[in-house]
Protein backbone atom coordinates (compact mmCIF):
# COMPACT_ATOMS: atom_id res chain seq x y z
CA UNK A 1 0.00 0.00 0.00
CA UNK A 2 1.14 3.46 -0.76
CA UNK A 3 1.35 6.09 1.94
CA UNK A 4 -0.61 8.98 0.46
CA UNK A 5 0.27 12.63 1.21
CA UNK A 6 -0.46 16.17 0.05
CA UNK A 7 2.22 18.50 -1.26
CA UNK A 8 1.66 22.13 -2.22
CA UNK A 9 4.32 23.64 -4.45
CA UNK A 10 4.29 27.26 -3.29
CA UNK A 11 6.17 28.40 -6.40
CA UNK A 12 3.32 27.21 -8.61
CA UNK A 13 0.23 28.12 -6.60
CA UNK A 14 -1.52 31.15 -8.10
CA UNK A 15 -4.14 31.49 -5.34
CA UNK A 16 -7.03 30.78 -7.68
CA UNK A 17 -8.90 29.00 -4.85
CA UNK A 18 -10.24 26.40 -7.26
CA UNK A 19 -9.15 23.64 -4.85
CA UNK A 20 -11.27 25.25 -2.12
CA UNK A 21 -14.28 25.46 -4.39
CA UNK A 22 -13.83 21.95 -5.76
CA UNK A 23 -13.61 20.54 -2.24
CA UNK A 24 -16.75 22.32 -1.08
CA UNK A 25 -18.68 21.14 -4.11
CA UNK A 26 -17.45 17.56 -4.26
CA UNK A 27 -18.07 16.93 -0.56
CA UNK A 28 -21.15 19.13 -0.08
CA UNK A 29 -19.34 20.80 2.81
CA UNK A 30 -21.76 22.81 4.97
CA UNK A 31 -21.85 26.58 5.08
CA UNK A 32 -19.14 28.09 7.25
CA UNK A 33 -16.80 25.12 7.01
CA UNK A 34 -13.70 25.06 4.84
CA UNK A 35 -11.89 21.77 4.67
CA UNK A 36 -9.25 23.39 2.49
CA UNK A 37 -8.09 26.99 2.28
CA UNK A 38 -5.39 28.98 0.51
CA UNK A 39 -3.13 31.09 2.73
CA UNK A 40 -1.04 33.85 1.17
CA UNK A 41 2.15 34.69 3.02
CA UNK A 42 3.82 38.09 2.65
CA UNK A 43 0.79 39.23 0.71
CA UNK A 44 1.66 42.05 -1.70
CA UNK A 45 5.34 42.00 -0.86
CA UNK A 46 8.24 40.64 -2.90
CA UNK A 47 8.53 36.91 -2.42
CA UNK A 48 4.83 36.41 -1.73
CA UNK A 49 3.79 32.76 -1.77
CA UNK A 50 0.41 31.07 -1.57
CA UNK A 51 -0.08 27.67 -0.01
CA UNK A 52 -3.16 25.51 -0.24
CA UNK A 53 -3.65 23.74 3.08
CA UNK A 54 -6.02 21.13 4.46
CA UNK A 55 -5.56 18.17 6.77
CA UNK A 56 -2.08 16.80 6.04
CA UNK A 57 -2.96 13.30 7.27
CA UNK A 58 -0.02 13.34 9.66
CA UNK A 59 2.14 10.42 10.63
CA UNK A 60 1.35 9.78 14.32
CA UNK A 61 -1.49 12.31 14.10
CA UNK A 62 -1.83 14.72 17.07
CA UNK A 63 -5.64 14.90 16.69
CA UNK A 64 -5.84 11.14 17.08
CA UNK A 65 -3.59 11.22 20.15
CA UNK A 66 -5.56 13.86 22.07
CA UNK A 67 -9.12 12.80 21.19
CA UNK A 68 -10.83 11.97 24.51
CA UNK A 69 -13.23 9.50 22.86
CA UNK A 70 -10.65 7.98 20.50
CA UNK A 71 -12.73 8.58 17.38
CA UNK A 72 -9.83 8.82 14.88
CA UNK A 73 -8.25 6.05 12.84
CA UNK A 74 -5.59 5.86 10.16
CA UNK A 75 -6.37 3.83 7.04
CA UNK A 76 -3.93 1.48 5.35
CA UNK A 77 -3.17 4.31 2.89
CA UNK A 78 -2.16 6.64 5.71
CA UNK A 79 -5.36 8.71 5.54
CA UNK A 80 -6.51 10.03 8.94
CA UNK A 81 -10.29 9.67 9.29
CA UNK A 82 -12.71 10.04 12.18
CA UNK A 83 -16.14 8.85 13.23
CA UNK A 84 -18.79 11.54 13.57
CA UNK A 85 -20.91 9.05 15.54
CA UNK A 86 -18.31 9.02 18.31
CA UNK A 87 -17.13 12.67 18.15
CA UNK A 88 -18.41 14.81 21.04
CA UNK A 89 -17.22 18.16 19.64
CA UNK A 90 -14.85 19.02 22.48
CA UNK A 91 -12.42 20.94 20.26
CA UNK A 92 -9.26 19.23 21.50
CA UNK A 93 -8.18 18.07 18.02
CA UNK A 94 -8.31 21.70 16.96
CA UNK A 95 -5.94 22.73 19.76
CA UNK A 96 -3.54 19.94 18.82
CA UNK A 97 -3.67 20.17 15.02
CA UNK A 98 -0.69 22.06 13.58
CA UNK A 99 -2.63 22.92 10.41
CA UNK A 100 -6.00 24.16 11.68
CA UNK A 101 -7.75 21.34 9.83
CA UNK A 102 -10.61 20.41 12.21
CA UNK A 103 -13.75 22.54 11.77
CA UNK A 104 -16.93 22.63 13.82
CA UNK A 105 -20.41 23.57 12.70
CA UNK A 106 -22.00 25.87 15.23
CA UNK A 107 -25.00 24.01 16.56
CA UNK A 108 -26.12 25.87 19.64
CA UNK A 109 -25.68 28.81 21.87
CA UNK A 110 -22.33 30.38 22.68
CA UNK A 111 -20.28 28.78 19.95
CA UNK A 112 -20.90 25.26 21.19
CA UNK A 113 -19.37 22.92 18.72
CA UNK A 114 -21.10 20.24 16.72
CA UNK A 115 -19.45 17.16 15.26
CA UNK A 116 -16.01 17.91 13.90
CA UNK A 117 -15.54 18.01 10.13
CA UNK A 118 -12.27 17.89 8.26
CA UNK A 119 -10.63 16.87 5.00
CA UNK A 120 -11.02 13.12 4.41
CA UNK A 121 -8.57 12.98 1.50
CA UNK A 122 -11.79 12.30 -0.44
CA UNK A 123 -11.85 8.93 1.31
CA UNK A 124 -15.23 9.10 3.07
CA UNK A 125 -15.52 7.76 6.61
CA UNK A 126 -15.93 4.61 8.67
CA UNK A 127 -19.28 3.72 7.00
CA UNK A 128 -19.40 1.22 4.14
CA UNK A 129 -17.78 2.63 0.99
CA UNK A 130 -19.91 4.71 -1.39
CA UNK A 131 -23.10 4.55 0.67
CA UNK A 132 -25.49 7.45 1.14
CA UNK A 133 -24.84 7.41 4.91
CA UNK A 134 -21.14 7.87 4.25
CA UNK A 135 -21.70 10.64 1.73
CA UNK A 136 -24.03 12.61 3.99
CA UNK A 137 -21.61 12.59 6.91
CA UNK A 138 -18.21 12.76 5.27
CA UNK A 139 -18.66 13.60 1.59
CA UNK A 140 -17.22 11.84 -1.43
CA UNK A 141 -15.18 8.64 -1.38
CA UNK A 142 -13.10 9.10 -4.51
CA UNK A 143 -10.37 6.82 -3.22
CA UNK A 144 -12.83 3.92 -3.29
CA UNK A 145 -13.52 4.80 -6.94
CA UNK A 146 -9.80 4.69 -7.71
CA UNK A 147 -9.49 8.48 -7.96
CA UNK A 148 -7.39 11.00 -6.07
CA UNK A 149 -8.73 13.98 -4.06
CA UNK A 150 -10.47 16.41 -6.39
CA UNK A 151 -8.61 19.49 -5.14
CA UNK A 152 -5.30 18.10 -6.38
CA UNK A 153 -6.68 16.43 -9.49
CA UNK A 154 -8.11 19.63 -10.89
CA UNK A 155 -5.37 22.05 -9.80
CA UNK A 156 -4.70 24.10 -12.92
CA UNK A 157 -1.01 24.71 -12.29
CA UNK A 158 -0.46 21.31 -10.68
CA UNK A 159 0.81 23.12 -7.61
CA UNK A 160 -1.21 20.86 -5.32
CA UNK A 161 -0.09 17.25 -5.59
CA UNK A 162 -1.77 14.23 -4.02
CA UNK A 163 -0.80 10.60 -4.18
CA UNK A 164 1.92 8.25 -3.02
CA UNK A 165 4.23 10.34 -0.83
CA UNK A 166 7.37 9.03 -2.48
CA UNK A 167 6.16 9.73 -6.00
CA UNK A 168 4.97 13.28 -5.33
CA UNK A 169 8.21 14.01 -3.48
CA UNK A 170 10.10 12.81 -6.55
CA UNK A 171 8.01 15.03 -8.85
CA UNK A 172 8.70 18.01 -6.60
CA UNK A 173 12.43 17.27 -6.50
CA UNK A 174 12.59 17.14 -10.30
CA UNK A 175 10.80 20.47 -10.55
CA UNK A 176 13.17 22.13 -8.11
CA UNK A 177 16.24 20.78 -9.90
CA UNK A 178 14.94 21.87 -13.30
CA UNK A 179 13.86 25.39 -12.40
CA UNK A 180 16.63 25.91 -9.85
CA UNK A 181 14.54 26.97 -6.84
CA UNK A 182 11.76 25.91 -4.51
CA UNK A 183 10.27 27.31 -1.32
CA UNK A 184 9.97 23.84 0.20
CA UNK A 185 7.33 21.23 0.90
CA UNK A 186 5.23 23.28 3.31
CA UNK A 187 4.18 21.44 6.43
CA UNK A 188 6.03 18.22 5.67
CA UNK A 189 8.49 18.50 8.53
CA UNK A 190 5.62 19.12 10.96
CA UNK A 191 3.29 16.48 9.52
CA UNK A 192 5.63 13.72 8.44
CA UNK A 193 8.81 14.58 10.38
CA UNK A 194 10.73 14.67 7.11
CA UNK A 195 11.36 17.41 4.59
CA UNK A 196 12.28 16.97 0.93
CA UNK A 197 16.00 17.46 0.40
CA UNK A 198 16.92 18.50 -3.09
Amino acid sequence: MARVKFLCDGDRCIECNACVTACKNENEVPWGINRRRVVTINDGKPGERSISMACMHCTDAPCKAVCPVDCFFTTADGVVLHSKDLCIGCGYCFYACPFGAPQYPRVGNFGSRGKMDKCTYCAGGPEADLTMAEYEKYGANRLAEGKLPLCAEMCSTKALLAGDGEIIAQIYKERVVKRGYGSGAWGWKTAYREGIDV
Partner: protein
Amino acid sequence: MTRGGFGRRIAVAAFVALFSVCLAMTLAPRAGWAQQARQGVNPTAQAVKEEQLLKELDRVTGRVSIPDSKAGTLIQPEGREWRAYHERTLHWIGGIAILGMLAVLALFYSVRGKIRIEHGWAGVKIMRFTTFERFVHWLTASSFIVLALSGLNVVFGKVLLLPLVGSDAFAVFSQWAKYAHNYLSFAFAAGIVLTFVIWVTENIPNRTDIAWAKQGGGILGHAHPPAGKFNGGQKLIFWSVVLVGAAIAASGYVLMFPFYGTNIADMQVAQIIHGVLGVLMIAVILAHIYIGTLGMEGAFDAMGTGEVDLNWAKEHHSLWVEEEMSKARAAGGGAAVPAE
Protein backbone atom coordinates in the same frame (compact mmCIF):
# COMPACT_ATOMS: atom_id res chain seq x y z
CA MET B 1 16.19 73.58 -50.96
CA THR B 2 13.29 75.15 -49.17
CA ARG B 3 13.15 76.24 -45.58
CA GLY B 4 10.70 73.41 -44.99
CA GLY B 5 13.27 70.82 -46.15
CA PHE B 6 15.86 72.16 -43.76
CA GLY B 7 13.40 72.07 -40.93
CA ARG B 8 12.56 68.43 -41.68
CA ARG B 9 16.22 67.49 -41.68
CA ILE B 10 16.69 69.02 -38.26
CA ALA B 11 13.62 67.18 -36.99
CA VAL B 12 14.93 63.85 -38.30
CA ALA B 13 18.34 64.46 -36.75
CA ALA B 14 16.73 65.34 -33.41
CA PHE B 15 14.55 62.23 -33.62
CA VAL B 16 17.53 59.98 -34.36
CA ALA B 17 19.50 61.48 -31.46
CA LEU B 18 16.58 61.06 -29.06
CA PHE B 19 15.95 57.51 -30.26
CA SER B 20 19.57 56.46 -29.70
CA VAL B 21 19.57 57.96 -26.22
CA CYS B 22 16.39 56.07 -25.39
CA LEU B 23 17.76 52.87 -26.89
CA ALA B 24 20.96 53.22 -24.89
CA MET B 25 18.94 53.79 -21.72
CA THR B 26 16.75 50.75 -22.29
CA LEU B 27 19.50 48.43 -23.43
CA ALA B 28 22.01 49.18 -20.73
CA PRO B 29 20.12 47.64 -17.80
CA ARG B 30 18.84 44.80 -19.97
CA ALA B 31 22.42 43.86 -20.75
CA GLY B 32 23.02 43.90 -17.03
CA TRP B 33 20.14 41.50 -16.37
CA ALA B 34 21.35 39.16 -19.05
CA GLN B 35 24.72 39.06 -17.37
CA GLN B 36 23.13 38.37 -13.98
CA ALA B 37 20.97 35.59 -15.37
CA ARG B 38 24.03 33.96 -16.85
CA GLN B 39 25.60 33.98 -13.39
CA GLY B 40 22.62 31.90 -12.10
CA VAL B 41 20.82 34.29 -9.77
CA ASN B 42 17.73 32.84 -8.09
CA PRO B 43 14.74 34.88 -9.28
CA THR B 44 12.91 33.97 -6.09
CA ALA B 45 15.71 34.88 -3.73
CA GLN B 46 13.24 36.87 -1.65
CA ALA B 47 10.65 34.09 -1.56
CA VAL B 48 9.39 33.17 1.89
CA LYS B 49 10.67 29.91 3.26
CA GLU B 50 8.81 27.79 5.80
CA GLU B 51 11.83 26.99 7.91
CA GLN B 52 12.89 30.59 8.20
CA LEU B 53 9.35 31.70 9.13
CA LEU B 54 9.05 29.03 11.79
CA LYS B 55 12.41 30.03 13.24
CA GLU B 56 11.35 33.66 13.45
CA LEU B 57 7.79 33.36 14.72
CA ASP B 58 7.17 29.71 15.69
CA ARG B 59 4.07 29.78 13.52
CA VAL B 60 3.25 30.67 9.92
CA THR B 61 0.38 33.04 9.24
CA GLY B 62 -0.86 34.79 6.13
CA ARG B 63 -3.96 36.18 4.49
CA VAL B 64 -6.98 34.16 3.46
CA SER B 65 -9.76 35.27 1.14
CA ILE B 66 -12.46 33.28 2.95
CA PRO B 67 -14.38 35.10 5.73
CA ASP B 68 -12.91 32.83 8.41
CA SER B 69 -9.87 34.93 9.31
CA LYS B 70 -8.55 32.42 11.85
CA ALA B 71 -7.85 30.08 8.92
CA GLY B 72 -4.97 32.44 8.15
CA THR B 73 -2.78 30.47 10.52
CA LEU B 74 -1.09 28.06 8.17
CA ILE B 75 1.09 26.05 10.54
CA GLN B 76 1.20 26.09 14.36
CA PRO B 77 3.67 23.41 15.55
CA GLU B 78 2.82 24.27 19.23
CA GLY B 79 -0.03 21.84 18.75
CA ARG B 80 2.55 19.13 19.35
CA GLU B 81 3.61 20.64 22.68
CA TRP B 82 0.01 20.94 23.77
CA ARG B 83 -0.44 17.30 22.83
CA ALA B 84 2.55 16.27 24.95
CA TYR B 85 1.07 18.20 27.86
CA HIS B 86 -2.38 16.71 27.44
CA GLU B 87 -1.28 13.12 26.89
CA ARG B 88 1.61 12.93 29.36
CA THR B 89 2.12 15.87 31.72
CA LEU B 90 -1.53 16.22 32.74
CA HIS B 91 -1.86 12.48 33.31
CA TRP B 92 1.12 12.58 35.66
CA ILE B 93 0.01 15.71 37.52
CA GLY B 94 -3.54 14.39 37.87
CA GLY B 95 -2.46 10.89 38.82
CA ILE B 96 0.01 12.03 41.44
CA ALA B 97 -2.29 14.70 42.91
CA ILE B 98 -5.40 12.54 43.18
CA LEU B 99 -3.90 9.14 43.99
CA GLY B 100 -1.32 10.82 46.24
CA MET B 101 -4.05 12.60 48.17
CA LEU B 102 -6.05 9.38 48.54
CA ALA B 103 -2.92 7.60 49.80
CA VAL B 104 -2.18 10.38 52.30
CA LEU B 105 -5.77 10.30 53.55
CA ALA B 106 -5.75 6.50 53.87
CA LEU B 107 -2.48 6.68 55.78
CA PHE B 108 -3.82 9.44 58.01
CA TYR B 109 -6.98 7.48 58.73
CA SER B 110 -5.00 4.35 59.63
CA VAL B 111 -2.78 6.33 62.01
CA ARG B 112 -5.18 8.84 63.54
CA GLY B 113 -8.50 7.13 62.97
CA LYS B 114 -11.73 9.08 63.21
CA ILE B 115 -11.30 12.23 65.27
CA ARG B 116 -13.83 11.80 68.07
CA ILE B 117 -15.61 14.40 70.13
CA GLU B 118 -13.39 14.12 73.22
CA HIS B 119 -16.05 15.03 75.74
CA GLY B 120 -18.69 12.97 74.04
CA TRP B 121 -21.97 14.20 72.57
CA ALA B 122 -23.45 17.00 74.64
CA GLY B 123 -26.91 16.35 73.24
CA VAL B 124 -27.32 20.09 72.89
CA LYS B 125 -27.14 21.63 69.45
CA ILE B 126 -25.98 24.99 68.23
CA MET B 127 -26.87 26.56 64.88
CA ARG B 128 -23.82 26.73 62.63
CA PHE B 129 -25.02 27.23 59.06
CA THR B 130 -28.31 28.73 57.93
CA THR B 131 -30.41 27.13 55.22
CA PHE B 132 -29.10 29.62 52.68
CA GLU B 133 -25.49 28.94 53.62
CA ARG B 134 -26.07 25.21 53.20
CA PHE B 135 -27.81 25.82 49.89
CA VAL B 136 -24.77 27.73 48.62
CA HIS B 137 -22.45 24.99 49.83
CA TRP B 138 -24.40 22.17 48.21
CA LEU B 139 -24.96 24.14 45.00
CA THR B 140 -21.20 24.50 44.66
CA ALA B 141 -20.47 21.00 45.91
CA SER B 142 -22.95 19.06 43.78
CA SER B 143 -22.05 20.92 40.60
CA PHE B 144 -18.36 20.49 41.37
CA ILE B 145 -18.71 16.73 41.73
CA VAL B 146 -20.36 16.43 38.31
CA LEU B 147 -17.83 18.84 36.79
CA ALA B 148 -14.95 16.92 38.36
CA LEU B 149 -16.14 13.52 37.18
CA SER B 150 -16.94 14.71 33.66
CA GLY B 151 -13.61 16.53 33.54
CA LEU B 152 -11.72 13.45 34.68
CA ASN B 153 -13.57 11.53 31.98
CA VAL B 154 -12.01 13.79 29.35
CA VAL B 155 -8.52 13.25 30.78
CA PHE B 156 -8.59 9.61 31.86
CA GLY B 157 -11.82 8.22 30.38
CA LYS B 158 -10.35 6.71 27.27
CA VAL B 159 -7.75 4.86 29.33
CA LEU B 160 -9.94 3.71 32.20
CA LEU B 161 -13.56 3.64 31.05
CA LEU B 162 -13.44 3.14 27.27
CA PRO B 163 -11.99 -0.41 27.41
CA LEU B 164 -14.71 -1.42 29.86
CA VAL B 165 -17.84 -0.13 28.11
CA GLY B 166 -16.84 -0.01 24.44
CA SER B 167 -16.53 2.98 22.14
CA ASP B 168 -20.22 3.56 21.35
CA ALA B 169 -21.44 3.62 24.95
CA PHE B 170 -18.42 5.66 25.96
CA ALA B 171 -19.09 8.24 23.23
CA VAL B 172 -22.73 8.62 24.31
CA PHE B 173 -21.70 8.97 27.94
CA SER B 174 -18.97 11.47 27.05
CA GLN B 175 -21.37 13.54 24.98
CA TRP B 176 -23.75 13.90 27.93
CA ALA B 177 -20.82 14.48 30.24
CA LYS B 178 -19.73 17.34 28.00
CA TYR B 179 -23.20 18.91 28.06
CA ALA B 180 -23.29 18.54 31.84
CA HIS B 181 -19.82 20.03 32.12
CA ASN B 182 -20.74 23.04 29.99
CA TYR B 183 -24.11 23.81 31.55
CA LEU B 184 -23.38 23.03 35.21
CA SER B 185 -20.44 25.41 34.99
CA PHE B 186 -22.98 28.21 35.45
CA ALA B 187 -24.24 26.70 38.71
CA PHE B 188 -20.68 26.25 39.90
CA ALA B 189 -19.68 29.80 38.99
CA ALA B 190 -22.74 31.16 40.80
CA GLY B 191 -21.84 29.02 43.80
CA ILE B 192 -18.29 30.43 43.84
CA VAL B 193 -19.57 34.00 43.78
CA LEU B 194 -22.11 33.35 46.57
CA THR B 195 -19.52 31.46 48.64
CA PHE B 196 -17.27 34.48 48.46
CA VAL B 197 -20.05 36.90 49.37
CA ILE B 198 -21.47 35.04 52.38
CA TRP B 199 -18.24 33.90 54.03
CA VAL B 200 -15.48 36.33 53.06
CA THR B 201 -15.66 38.41 56.27
CA GLU B 202 -15.16 35.34 58.47
CA ASN B 203 -12.31 34.04 56.32
CA ILE B 204 -9.87 36.93 56.51
CA PRO B 205 -6.65 35.50 58.01
CA ASN B 206 -5.76 36.81 61.50
CA ARG B 207 -3.47 36.07 64.47
CA THR B 208 -5.60 33.19 65.70
CA ASP B 209 -4.73 31.33 62.52
CA ILE B 210 -1.00 31.67 63.21
CA ALA B 211 -1.42 30.16 66.67
CA TRP B 212 -3.69 27.50 65.14
CA ALA B 213 -1.11 26.67 62.48
CA LYS B 214 1.73 26.53 65.07
CA GLN B 215 -0.12 23.77 66.89
CA GLY B 216 -0.64 21.97 63.58
CA GLY B 217 -4.34 22.69 63.83
CA GLY B 218 -4.57 19.92 66.40
CA ILE B 219 -4.72 17.52 63.48
CA LEU B 220 -1.91 15.24 64.64
CA GLY B 221 -2.03 15.64 68.42
CA HIS B 222 -5.05 15.95 70.65
CA ALA B 223 -4.73 19.70 71.16
CA HIS B 224 -7.67 21.96 70.33
CA PRO B 225 -6.20 25.34 69.39
CA PRO B 226 -8.80 28.12 69.60
CA ALA B 227 -10.56 29.09 66.39
CA GLY B 228 -13.37 31.39 65.27
CA LYS B 229 -16.19 30.34 62.97
CA PHE B 230 -13.56 29.08 60.52
CA ASN B 231 -10.16 27.75 61.52
CA GLY B 232 -6.93 28.14 59.53
CA GLY B 233 -7.50 24.98 57.51
CA GLN B 234 -11.03 25.95 56.59
CA LYS B 235 -9.81 29.37 55.54
CA LEU B 236 -7.32 27.67 53.25
CA ILE B 237 -10.14 25.62 51.73
CA PHE B 238 -12.25 28.76 51.38
CA TRP B 239 -9.57 30.71 49.56
CA SER B 240 -8.54 27.83 47.33
CA VAL B 241 -12.16 27.22 46.36
CA VAL B 242 -12.78 30.89 45.67
CA LEU B 243 -9.52 31.72 43.88
CA VAL B 244 -8.81 28.42 42.12
CA GLY B 245 -12.51 27.94 41.41
CA ALA B 246 -12.71 31.38 39.83
CA ALA B 247 -9.61 30.69 37.72
CA ILE B 248 -11.02 27.35 36.60
CA ALA B 249 -14.35 28.94 35.72
CA ALA B 250 -12.70 31.81 33.83
CA SER B 251 -10.42 29.53 31.83
CA GLY B 252 -13.36 27.24 31.17
CA TYR B 253 -15.42 30.04 29.67
CA VAL B 254 -12.51 30.92 27.39
CA LEU B 255 -12.76 27.37 26.03
CA MET B 256 -16.54 27.41 25.88
CA PHE B 257 -16.58 30.56 23.74
CA PRO B 258 -13.95 29.71 21.13
CA PHE B 259 -12.39 32.64 19.26
CA TYR B 260 -14.25 35.28 21.27
CA GLY B 261 -11.21 37.54 21.42
CA THR B 262 -8.84 34.61 21.66
CA ASN B 263 -6.74 32.61 19.25
CA ILE B 264 -5.53 29.02 19.25
CA ALA B 265 -2.46 29.79 21.39
CA ASP B 266 -4.64 31.50 24.03
CA MET B 267 -7.00 28.55 24.12
CA GLN B 268 -4.10 26.12 24.53
CA VAL B 269 -2.91 28.13 27.55
CA ALA B 270 -6.46 28.32 28.92
CA GLN B 271 -6.85 24.57 28.58
CA ILE B 272 -3.55 23.95 30.40
CA ILE B 273 -4.62 26.24 33.29
CA HIS B 274 -8.07 24.64 33.37
CA GLY B 275 -6.75 21.08 33.42
CA VAL B 276 -3.94 21.51 35.94
CA LEU B 277 -5.99 23.61 38.39
CA GLY B 278 -8.90 21.22 37.95
CA VAL B 279 -7.01 18.11 39.05
CA LEU B 280 -5.35 20.01 41.91
CA MET B 281 -8.71 21.26 43.13
CA ILE B 282 -10.09 17.72 43.02
CA ALA B 283 -7.22 16.66 45.29
CA VAL B 284 -7.90 19.52 47.73
CA ILE B 285 -11.62 18.79 47.79
CA LEU B 286 -10.97 15.11 48.50
CA ALA B 287 -9.27 16.19 51.73
CA HIS B 288 -12.21 18.51 52.47
CA ILE B 289 -14.71 15.71 51.93
CA TYR B 290 -12.67 13.36 54.12
CA ILE B 291 -12.50 15.66 57.13
CA GLY B 292 -16.15 16.62 56.78
CA THR B 293 -17.41 13.02 56.78
CA LEU B 294 -15.24 10.02 57.56
CA GLY B 295 -12.44 11.87 59.31
CA MET B 296 -14.25 13.69 62.10
CA GLU B 297 -17.15 12.81 64.34
CA GLY B 298 -19.88 15.43 64.40
CA ALA B 299 -18.50 17.50 61.54
CA PHE B 300 -21.02 16.56 58.86
CA ASP B 301 -23.96 17.95 60.83
CA ALA B 302 -22.70 21.47 60.10
CA MET B 303 -23.59 21.06 56.43
CA GLY B 304 -26.22 18.37 56.99
CA THR B 305 -28.80 19.75 59.40
CA GLY B 306 -26.94 22.98 59.99
CA GLU B 307 -26.84 22.37 63.73
CA VAL B 308 -23.73 20.96 65.43
CA ASP B 309 -23.20 19.38 68.81
CA LEU B 310 -22.17 21.91 71.44
CA ASN B 311 -19.17 19.87 72.60
CA TRP B 312 -17.94 19.53 69.03
CA ALA B 313 -18.27 23.27 68.57
CA LYS B 314 -16.44 24.02 71.84
CA GLU B 315 -13.57 21.74 70.88
CA HIS B 316 -13.09 22.95 67.32
CA HIS B 317 -14.42 26.50 67.25
CA SER B 318 -14.10 27.76 70.83
CA LEU B 319 -13.96 31.47 69.98
CA TRP B 320 -17.00 31.19 67.75
CA VAL B 321 -19.02 29.44 70.48
CA GLU B 322 -18.10 32.17 72.99
CA GLU B 323 -19.15 34.81 70.50
CA GLU B 324 -22.47 33.09 69.81
CA MET B 325 -23.10 32.65 73.54
CA SER B 326 -22.50 36.30 74.33
CA LYS B 327 -24.69 37.31 71.39
CA ALA B 328 -27.47 35.10 72.68
CA ARG B 329 -27.10 36.44 76.23
CA ALA B 330 -27.31 39.99 74.98
CA ALA B 331 -30.34 39.25 72.88
CA GLY B 332 -32.45 36.80 74.88
CA GLY B 333 -31.16 37.11 78.44
CA GLY B 334 -30.18 33.68 79.67
CA ALA B 335 -30.91 31.61 76.58
CA ALA B 336 -27.37 30.32 76.25
CA VAL B 337 -28.12 27.76 73.58
CA PRO B 338 -29.63 29.29 70.47
CA ALA B 339 -31.01 26.09 69.04
CA GLU B 340 -32.22 22.88 70.56
